[in-house]
């Protein structure tokens, strides 16, 4: 595959006129029921490989250098670390019970893992493979987001319904923000000025001013012909410039495109069924969505805001990450 990347790089250099030419990135999709990872080539948009990943793989992420792929194996109570090219399992990380989602410190270490069963966030040193701290949080910790300066990691607790702001040096909770029911995902903007928290059962995304610890806006979703109960926001991704926010709406089978300045919903894109998580390619040309109940991935062209392809993957795709350049 490296050859192919080089080839496409040469091609891109040679054909500078075709500005829409995307790099070939590897896209990794965790299949919750299939117990495996589907690997997709972002240029051909074809599945290139599938490999086993432990029981109930959900949260998925990559080391900064792209040399390690981290996968939460929820039913094995570990985080598996794979070589993203050979798919060889390199080692495992201690994770605490039932790990679901995690986030990496911007420096690449440590890893912050939400442990749903134990009401804690586990902080793991990925180099020493040891637990640095366990932070008690609300009931059913789930979403994890880290501020771009690395000073604050935010955890959402699904039953307590809070975003907990944890100081990454002292591991103390500094602020708690009450949001709507079942908060699942926390995403900072790249400038660190805003934090988006999705509430699956509440049906909203809270826009939080992290400095003030206050909600400045609640984004609501409405699609004609779809019952309000089906609007269940889960995954959230923001473009680097902060101007566009993409929100996966679960059983509404839509991804909402929100204006990052006015917080108005500008468009709803029809994707597969029960859309969970989202991931951009590093050049932000494409956005991949995992569609849990239709066993596929939708590919969104970020500039034109169109779904350009649907790719069949494994059983019940859940998480997605794209390798860095």
């Amino acid at each position, binding site marked *: 595959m490296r050859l192919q990347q080089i080839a496409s790089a040469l091609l891109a250099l040679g054909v500078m006129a075709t500005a829409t030419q995307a790099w070939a990135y590897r896209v990794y999709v965790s299949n919750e029921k299939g117990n495996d990872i589907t690997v997709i080539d972002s240029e051909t948009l074809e599945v290139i490989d599938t490999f086993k990943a432990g029981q109930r793989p959900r949260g998925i992420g990559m080391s900064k250098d792209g040399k390690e792929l981290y996968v939460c194996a929820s039913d094995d109570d570990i985080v598996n670390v794979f070589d993203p090219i050979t798919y060889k399992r390199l080692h495992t990380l201690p994770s605490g019970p039932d790990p679901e989602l995690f986030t990496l410190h911007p420096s690449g270490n440590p890893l912050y893992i939400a442990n749903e069963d134990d009401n804690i966030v586990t902080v793991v040193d990925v180099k020493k493979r040891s637990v640095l701290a366990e932070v008690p949080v609300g*009931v059913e910790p789930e979403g994890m987001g880290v501020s771009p300066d690395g000073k604050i990691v935010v955890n959402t607790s*699904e039953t*307590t319904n809070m975003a907990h702001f944890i100081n990454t040096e002292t591991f103390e909770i500094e602020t708690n923000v009450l949001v709507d029911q079942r908060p699942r995902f926390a995403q900072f903007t790249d400038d660190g000025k805003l934090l988006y928290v999705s509430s699956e059962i509440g049906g909203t995304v809270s826009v939080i001013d992290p400095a003030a610890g206050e909600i400045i806006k609640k984004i609501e979703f409405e699609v004609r012909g779809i019952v309000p109960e089906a609007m269940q926001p889960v995954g959230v991704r923001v473009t680097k410039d902060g101007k566009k926010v993409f929100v996966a709406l679960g059983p509404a089978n839509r991804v909402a495109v929100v204006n990052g300045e006015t917080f108005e919903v500008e468009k709803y894109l029809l994707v597969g069924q029960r859309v969970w998580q989202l991931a951009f390619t590093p050049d932000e040309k494409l956005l991949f969505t995992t569609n849990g109940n239709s066993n596929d991935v939708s590919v969104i062209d970020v500039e034109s805001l169109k779904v350009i392809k649907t790719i069949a993957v494994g059983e019940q795709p859940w998480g997605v990450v794209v390798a860095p350049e």
Partner: protein
Amino acid sequence: MRVWLLVCFSLLWIGSTPARVNASDKQVISVGVLKVERETPLPISRLDLPPEGLGFQGARLATEENQTTGRFTGQDYQLNEATASPEEALEALDTLIEGGSNLIVTMATGDDLTALSKHVSGRDVLLLNAQAEDDSLRTDVCLPNVLHVAPSRALKADGLTQFLAVKKWRKVFLISGSHDGDKLWADALRRSANKFGLKIVEERTFEDTGGARRSDTGHVQVQKQMPIFTQRAPDYDVLLAADESDVFAAYLPYHTTDPRPVAGSAGLRPIGWHPANEAWGATQFQRRFEKLASRRVRSLDYQVWLAVRTIGEAATRVKSSEATPLKEYILGPDFELGVFKGTKVTFRPWNHQLRQPVLLANDRVIVSVSPQDGFPHRVSLMDTLGFDQQESTCAFNK
């Protein structure tokens, strides 16, 4: 005296307490749970024998969860439990209130609940009904100081018959027991069958003649009795059993004369909760409960849990421990609660019934969850289950 000790369930701090609140500043929210015990016959199956702490374990789990949130909001949740005979129920209720609990979750029959409600009428006390399913409490006997967390019989029946309508199993053979609860359950099934276009082609009553519930190799007689009891029925698609008293329904599957599925009190059952449910984050709930109680969760545990969580959610948002503002918030447009059934739950302001999905389950797995697709409603899909506004005379919101 059967008024048992009021157990103050004081929760231990687990781990550090990161909230920056002094203990003296904490707002105390005191929840009482009252079980009014009546003699009930033994169940057919020993698997259904009532476990230790039935219902109360749900309150304990919910209090732990409320307390975890309370660490961050500066609130301290207390739980007081009481069990009483019907004769001593009012006294037990007074004792709970005198002990500081003005928010009381009840495990009581409809009649006992009505007596409790009238006893505290005019006081700043809110009752949350976790057990009584009587339809009359939602339509005619309107108790202003009671919130119904338990689904009504009508709500459960609608959840089931919607599914049968989707399956196009429209011809129903209804067998009801001879006890009062069985008759009320049969009434609810009849109403619901009519509502969703099913036709009851045959009705029979199974008389309970008393006697022991179980005997050694009792199946030998059952295998002869049930086919005889179900023979010569007109052509039907599904047999509905209305047997709240647990006298006969469990014996119907595989013993009917005609090879037909059984639903209602056996086979496919509409229930509030099932220990096999794993969807919508329910696994975590099941594991938390099992860790605490060392057994699987029952519907009554879940309903008491839901009632105590309702109080916790309202107290978190309103930051009050008084019954009146909490009740107003719970019945208002801003209240919502995630309960591991895929959608938020809210209360119907006209009769104080909790809107909730109904699980349809067999013994081992969830078969489906109602409301089903294809039954639209102008306000909420959940209002296709149970009594809609125009069907209730309560009109608390008018």
